[in-house]
């Protein structure tokens, strides 16, 4: 805008550039360092090309996203290797619908434990989203309670997974073989669900630590509850990974 005004004045190119620079500097000091933010595609260009912080989020949030990006690659590698061995085996793959069935009142219900685990994890994601919301409202009690409930659901999930592992191991599933078919079933099952369960367990500890800090007023003193949102990102990611494991390992 200021550049257009200057060109109509008929100044020389060098003077325009100098004046524009001064004007821009003045504008920056006037608004306390923040410039106008173009949205959409021009926004991408200006955010990436400027000599400044590229992502306008707290650094912890950007780092968590980048960590989750790397975790996406790890889990995709696991699921891809599972796909590869499942395609290439000449032995029939055990039917997950039957393998993970539980007897309820004498009749086998397919995948029922996995369905309950899925619901537990989704519920924990819901309580986490609400914890983030209450955090930004500076409601310490509700944030702490909701985070602990989330951690509780997470612990329940890990408990159910331990039950599932115990049941399968008792039935003879090993990383090198099982009674129903392709031996790769065991190795991919333990690797994928084990790594996911490890993430849930780590998340339960993470949530408990942050919840206790919320309760002690750490983030009130810090003046920002963004750590709760960052913890939430991790937790929702764990739920996200389960969506893919549920689809590809249990339902396929």
């Amino acid at each position, binding site marked *: 805008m200021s550049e257009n005004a200057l060109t109509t004045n008929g100044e020389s190119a060098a003077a325009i550039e100098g004046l524009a620079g001064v004007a821009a500097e003045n504008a920056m000091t006037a*608004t306390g360092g*923040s*410039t*106008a*933010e173009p*949205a*959409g595609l021009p926004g*991408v260009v200006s*955010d*990436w090309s400027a000599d400044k912080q*590229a*992502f*306008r*989020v707290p650094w912890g949030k*950007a780092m968590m*996203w*980048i960590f*989750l*990006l790397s975790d*996406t*690659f790890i889990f*995709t*590698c696991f699921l*891809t*290797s599972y*796909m*590869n*061995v*499942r*395609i*290439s*085996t*000449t032995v029939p793959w055990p039917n997950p*619908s039957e393998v993970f069935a539980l007897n309820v009142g004498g009749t086998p219900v397919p*995948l029922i434990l996995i*369905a309950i685990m*899925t*619901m537990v994890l*989704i519920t924990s*994601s*819901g309580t986490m*989203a*609400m914890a*983030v*919301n209450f955090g*930004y409202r500076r409601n310490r009690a509700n944030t702490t309670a909701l985070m602990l409930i989330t951690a509780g659901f997470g612990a329940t999930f890990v408990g159910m997974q331990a039950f599932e592992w115990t049941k399968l191991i008792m039935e003879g599933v090993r990383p090198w073989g099982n009674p129903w078919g392709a031996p790769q079933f065991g190795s991919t099952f333990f690797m994928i669900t084990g790594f996911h369960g490890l993430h849930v367990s780590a998340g339960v500890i993470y949530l408990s630590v942050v919840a206790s800090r919320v309760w002690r007023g750490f983030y009130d003193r810090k003046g920002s509850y*963004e750590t709760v*949102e960052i913890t*939430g*990102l991790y937790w*929702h*990611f764990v*739920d*996200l990974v389960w*969506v893919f494991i*549920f*689809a590809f390992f*249990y*339902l*396929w």
Partner: protein
Amino acid sequence: MATAAGHEHAEGQQHPIAVYMWIWALLFVFSTFSYLVDYFHLHGILRWTLIITFMLVKAGLIVAIFMHMAWERLALKFAILIPPLVLLILIGLMAVEGDYTFLTRLTAFLR
């Protein structure tokens, strides 16, 4: 505009709780749908299409709403959501490789 964005930055992501409840309910519904795919023993293309559709819808809702990606700036969206697309190449290659291994094993066993 600038002040509004600055304000949001200071206060972080704040959205009505009703939004989360809606997404929560939708995730329940779609999880039930994907469970029913197995429960009713659907097979073949229909089963795979439904499983992948429900999976992508759920993943999209979690990332967009629960993880607040829908409200982030496009630069962050691009930086986080585009790199995983290269994984499609890995998946494609490994699918082809798996088929090849399968056929090699078949010929080896038949001989």
